[in-house]
């Protein structure tokens, strides 16, 4: 089984931080930060490197 894609989201406005999967990332970009409502771009996400990767 391949490792699932994970990202760290940091809201540019309220600075809320959470680890998210691709469907959450897409929902945040489409709807804005769930905590404060600020618009969110793809730049707010950083790919998490899996420790299982070589």
């Amino acid at each position, binding site marked *: 089984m391949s490792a699932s894609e994970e990202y760290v989201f940091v809201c540019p406005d309220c600075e809320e931080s959470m680890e998210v999967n691709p469907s*959450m990332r897409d*929902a945040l970009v489409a*709807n804005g930060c769930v905590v404060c*409502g*600020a618009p969110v771009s793809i730049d707010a996400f950083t790919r998490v490197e899996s420790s299982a990767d070589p």
Partner: protein
Amino acid sequence: MGLEQETEMTREETDALLSRHETGVLSLASDDDPYAIPISYGYDADERQFYMRLVSTPDSKKREFLSGSPTVRLVVYEEAGRTYRSVVVSGVLHPIARDEITPEHVEQYGDAKRPLFEIWGDARKDLDIQLYVLRPETISGRRIELELDQ
């Protein structure tokens, strides 16, 4: 101005009113101490649930009243000419922990208005933003038609 007619609204009328508005007054209580606050919400008419972001400071009275899963009432009303409509919702306010947030929640909160941080005197970092869902036990809508005396 006299009272002409008071009618219970249908579910469709009630849902329509709740959907076209986005603010109301949320009432909480602790023993005999009442607490009412203006809030904004997003309403899911299919699930009949309300989604709210409530902002408070850690030691505030508001935070105290919101602790746990409080029983609340939400009032939304409007006045249009001689027609007055109001909806009273009673139910339980459930906090949503950050690790319970789903893509569906993100979509629901996308319909809720942003908190007006500028009305708070405190720095943003000192504000606690908690997500809640209000699951109603009852939703009651009334329409009153007023008759002008003169």
